[in-house]
């Protein structure tokens, strides 16, 4: 456990040191949220209806943008071998790195979402569902993303290939997530979408460490 936490802490401190940590993720979230209405034309009513979708899509993109370096840096400086030779299985290392990634991207976004939703004029009634759905669903971005990141870790310019690989895995989450919020706004029962979201998250939690570690082992050999 102490080794697991050490890795989480190392990645967090690396993120803070060079990337600005969660603040950068937040700033990106803000900028994209600002850019979208600019392109679309800021008719408020149009925006309000689409707000939940916008926010979920931005969350996916923010995660995507920071994912490509998740294992790349470790692969390039030889740290991956050290992670593989620790006492913990490589699966645990992947999980620790996902946790650190989520703590710097997903979590702050979930917490800041109400403010952004307000800026986008989201109808009241969806705020609770927005935060809750982001908390439950955004780990998938880190977890499923980790699989793609592990697969492309050895490759230069893996960034774009990475997006091609993980966006299909993100699509259902965005649909379920936005669906949950929309249902809440319309006062409808959003249970189905939310349950599917939670299920995806659990599924990713089980699958990602296994698949990610397998992909990393391929890269190592």
């Amino acid at each position, binding site marked *: 456990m102490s080794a697991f936490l050490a*890795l989480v*802490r190392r990645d967090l401190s*690396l993120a803070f*040191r060079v990337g600005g940590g969660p603040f950068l993720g937040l700033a990106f979230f803000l900028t994209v949220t600002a850019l979208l209405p600019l392109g679309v034309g800021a008719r408020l009513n149009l925006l309000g209806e689409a707000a939940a979708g916008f926010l979920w899509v931005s969350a996916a993109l923010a995660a995507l943008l920071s994912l490509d370096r998740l294992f790349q*840096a470790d692969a390039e400086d030889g740290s991956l*071998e*050290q*992670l593989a030779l620790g006492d913990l299985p490589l699966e645990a290392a992947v999980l620790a790195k996902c946790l650190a990634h989520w703590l710097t991207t997903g979590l702050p976004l979930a917490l800041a979402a109400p403010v952004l939703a307000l800026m986008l004029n989201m109808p009241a009634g969806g705020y609770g569902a927005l935060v809750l759905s982001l908390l439950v669903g955004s780990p998938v971005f880190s977890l499923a993303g980790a699989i793609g990141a592990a697969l492309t870790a050895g490759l230069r310019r893996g960034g774009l290939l990475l997006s091609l690989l993980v966006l299909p895995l993100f699509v259902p989450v965005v649909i379920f997530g936005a669906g949950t919020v929309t249902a809440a706004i319309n006062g409808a029962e959003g249970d189905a979408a939310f349950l599917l979201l939670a299920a995806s998250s659990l599924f990713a939690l089980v699958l990602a460490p296994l698949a990610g570690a397998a992909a990393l082992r391929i890269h190592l*050999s």
Partner: protein
Amino acid sequence: MGFQRVEIRADGIACRRGERLLFRDFGLTAASGTLTEIVGPNGAGKSSLLRILAGLLKAEAGTVAVVADGRVLGRDDEPPSGLMHYLGHLDALKNPMTARENLAFAARWFGAAHGIDAALERVELKAQGELPVGYLSAGQRRRLALGRCWMIARPLWLLDEPTAALDAAGRALAAELIAAHLAAGGTALAATHEPILAGAAQAMIA
């Protein structure tokens, strides 16, 4: 601080990279308390052999076994965990983190036998402890990586050109660290282009 005495045995190892068979029928037994220098020309496959021994690369054929008291450790196709250090051509250091922080992480990831200050002192980087590793010189980085091996007690050291980028004092230091490791009952293998320790066994890869 103490560790098991282990022996590593490789038998009939063949190594293929891409379409090329680098070497085959390579065998070696490295006993506790000995250093085996793996020598051979550039591209012969020394680094590949070390990765095979560490379980990071699959051999085309042959077996590797880590043995303690005649008993083979680890599962059939996977090397035992927690027994070895692998130091590759790359130093595995995080540039944005300081020397001390790098060691601190390694200490908690692997479980350390010595303190971080002791390790910094041992490799003469006391003054550089608070410097981000990205600012260190090539030789200082290598020293730090060696300090990491020293700090964490593991019986089997697999070192790929441990003396690369080191000055004369650094090479003497590396030899000292390895000698102390052997004296404590450790086993060491090092790919190298220059003799590291007088009296070391040599394994040649053609």
